[in-house]
């Protein structure tokens, strides 16, 4: 069991009204934004389950939009996120999906488009108490929470790639707390997710990208 802090009880400090529908939503979008290495031009949020039913009254839409612009769960700008997004020219939309029900009740798909027209789809679940997890990147099921510094490597599913990644990490003195591998299917795209205590070195992404078998590296710093 992970450590439950006094501030997990007295917290999170958050913009109301709901830890799962507001704070958790902001958290998912915040994590998603960190996974995009380029300028965000357009974002579409698809809402499922309870999110789809009550998103307006819970400010889930404002929270998601705030999170995608990098606002934390306690950032007052969340209230004005619609206006702020319009000011910076971010194209955003919300699509409630009440047809697909075979998902966690508080699920959102975030489709981000960057200035070059490239897309990335992130699916997140709000788990209650402001906690969240990312459970899909594009077509691959993953699982991490962003509660640790997280390194996400998109790579070819072939021998030696994981060894290469762990060597880069050990060369830089990074202590791995958790490491998991997810893949679409054998021989195709795979994702290595590495979680570490403390900050990851700034140049670690650059190092890992040097491998021809690595197509992208994302870092979410604690």
């Amino acid at each position, binding site marked *: 069991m992970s450590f439950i802090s006094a501030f997990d*009880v*007295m917290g999170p400090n958050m913009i109301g009204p709901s830890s799962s529908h507001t704070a958790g939503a902001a958290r998912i979008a915040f994590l998603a934004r960190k996974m995009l290495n380029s300028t965000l031009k357009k974002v579409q949020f698809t809402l499922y389950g309870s999110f789809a039913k009550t998103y307006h009254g819970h400010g889930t839409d404002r929270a998601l939009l705030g999170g995608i612009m990098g606002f934390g769960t306690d950032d007052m700008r969340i209230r004005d996120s619609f206006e702020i997004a319009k000011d910076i020219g971010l194209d955003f939309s919300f699509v409630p999906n009440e047809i697909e029900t075979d998902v966690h009740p508080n699920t959102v798909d975030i489709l981000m488009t960057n200035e070059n027209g490239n897309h990335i789809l992130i699916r997140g679940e709000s788990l209650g108490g402001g906690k969240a997890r990312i459970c899909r990147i594009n077509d691959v099921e993953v699982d991490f929470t962003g509660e640790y510094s997280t390194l996400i490597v998109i790579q070819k599913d072939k021998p030696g790639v994981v060894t290469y990644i762990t060597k880069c990490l050990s060369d830089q003195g990074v202590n791995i707390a958790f490491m998991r591998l997810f893949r679409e299917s054998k021989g195709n795209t795979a994702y290595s997710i590495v979680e570490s205590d403390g900050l990851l070195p700034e140049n670690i992404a650059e190092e890992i990208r040097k491998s021809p078998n690595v197509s992208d590296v994302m870092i979410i710093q604690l």
Partner: protein
Amino acid sequence: MDFKNANELLDLCKKHDLPISEVMRQREIVEGEKEADTVHDAMARVLEIMKNAAFTPIKEPVRSMGGLIGGEAKKIASRYHSGFGICGDLLEKSMIYAMATLETNASMGLIVASPTAGSAGIVPGLLLGLQEVHKLDDEQIIQALFNASAIGYLAMRNATVAGAVGGCQAEVGVASAMAASAIVELLGGDPEQCLGAASTVLMNMLGLVCDPVGGLVEYPCQNRNAAGVANAIIAAEISLSGIHQLIPFDEMLNAMYIVGKRLPAELRETAQGGCAATPSACAACGGCA
């Protein structure tokens, strides 16, 4: 300095001759691997947010996002200031702050989930009410928040604080137990009396369902935060009078958890039963699922 249940917490208090708040504070430093100053500053920030959330709507009432609440704290405050209030200083002030905090929450203001957003008014409501009536300083309140955290931690660890899992008894019930324990310590009670008060609250709120109108954290949540404050005061008074509780906190917490899991789904935050299913509620929220 770690503990898994109330029994172990009591043992630690006895062994080191410390109040619950101090055991919890030291646990945060030792087990959480943080500096004492960092921990103190974080809790001071919690208190600062709590004060803003509790005081602002009394002067500037705000309508909630869902439109079901807004302005209640100011109404009770003006009745209190007119001298006609029937609850007495402590309960009047505490319920005003508790309901105000829910107004702040429901209008997308900044609050501290303590332990949840829906029950965020109870701990600050009672502690800020007591602070004014008994002229306590901020450092005493900050310390008391660690006591409340200990109770909330046990509920999160060994049961639940989620309305969707255990009903309102797990949200408002646990928040009220946290507040009761914290004020017992502030008023000179020993750790056993703190836990006795927390146990009494859970007993008196056992079975309370989670039935938010329209699925929103507004109504009846705001009223129940006031009720949670009252329950905490009653339990603290019973405990401080030297009345021993037959059922210890660990057993009462487990009983609450079992009852919560047995509640049907429509009474666990799905807005399909209880208050949410009444004709007036359905009319107010424009038709529910």
